[in-house]
C-alpha cells in the first residue's frame, strides 16, 4: 500500500495504482476533472500509465460556479 495526499487529505492506495485507478476509487470517470500530480498536469491520455508514488500530492479539480 502507498499513502498519497489527495486534495489535502491522506489517501491510501494499493501499490502500483495509476491515476486512472485513483479516479475509479473516487467514483469519477475523470472527464470533467483536471488531475495535477506534484504540480504537474496529467493529461487524460497519460492517466492510465501514470503510476502514483508514496507521498505524491494529487489535486483533482473541477469547474464549479463562479463569477
Amino acid at each position: 500500500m502507498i499513502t498519497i495526499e489527495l486534495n489535502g487529505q491522506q489517501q491510501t492506495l494499493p501499490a502500483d495504482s495509476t491515476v486512472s485507478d485513483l479516479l475509479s476509487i473516487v467514483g469519477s470517470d475523470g472527464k470533467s476533472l483536471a488531475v495535477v500530480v506534484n504540480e504537474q498536469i496529467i493529461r487524460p491520455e497519460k492517466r492510465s500509465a501514470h503510476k502514483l508514488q508514496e507521498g505524491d500530492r494529487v489535486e483533482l479539480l473541477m469547474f464549479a460556479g463562479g463569477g
Partner: protein
Amino acid sequence: MDLLQLGSYTFSSRLILGTGKFSNSTVMLDAVRASGAQLVTVALRRFNREQSEDDLFGPLLTLEGITLMPNTSGASTAAEAVRAAHIARELSGSPFIKVEIHPNPQHLMPDPIETFEASRILAKEGFLVMPYIAADPVLAKRLEEVGCASVMPLGSAIGSGQGLATSEMLNIIIRESGIPVIVDAGLRSPSEAAHAMEMGCAAVLVNSAVAAAGNPPAMAEAFAEAVVAGRKAIRAGLMEKSGSAVATSPLTFLGTL
C-alpha cells in the same frame, strides 16, 4: 454587425454571465439561456465526491454556443493564478482566463501588483487575458500594454449591489483604453448595465444580480435587454446636456393670439 471582439473571438452578446451563487444548476442553465450570454465564467474547485452535483462541466456542455471563461479566484499570488490558468485551460480548452486575485476575503479588492504580473505572463503565453481590476486608469493602461484582451474594472465591490460607484474613474478608463472595457462586479439592476453601456463599456459581466434575484432567468433576460438598449443608445449618439431648459415647443405662438 455590431460584435464584441476579444482577441480573435467575436460575440454578438455583450452580456457575460457568472455562474456562482445559483440555487442549483438547472436555474443557472435557465439563466444562461435567458441571458443570451455567449461567454460564461466558471471557477476551479477541488473535486468532492460528496458534492459531485456541483460539477458544472457536464451541464454547461449541454448549452450551445457557449465559450467558457474560467477565473483564477482563490489565487492570492501571480504564481498561483498562472498555475490555475494552466489547469483551467486544460479542462476548458478555452483561451480565455479571467485573472482574479483578491487576497482579502473581507473586501475582495483585486491585488493590482499580482494581477499585473499574472496578466503579463499569461498574455505572453497566448491566453486571452481578462483581468478583474479596481477602476484604476493607470493600471488599465499598463495591462493593455502587456497584451490583455480587455480590462474588467469593478463598478463596486463584488456582490455588493452598489452599482457604478466608480463611474468617474470608469469614464477615464473608457476614454483612454484601446481595448474593450468590461464592467465586472457590483451591478444590481439592469438600468446600471444600460448606463455602463451608454458610458461606452464594451460589455458587462454580471453574476450576483442575476443569481440572487427572485427569478434569476427573468432577471437575466432583463439584463440582456438593458445591455442591448445601452449599446444602441451610445451608437445612436446621446444628446448634449444643457445647464438650462431648452424648449421643445414654440413659446411664442399663444402670445400672439
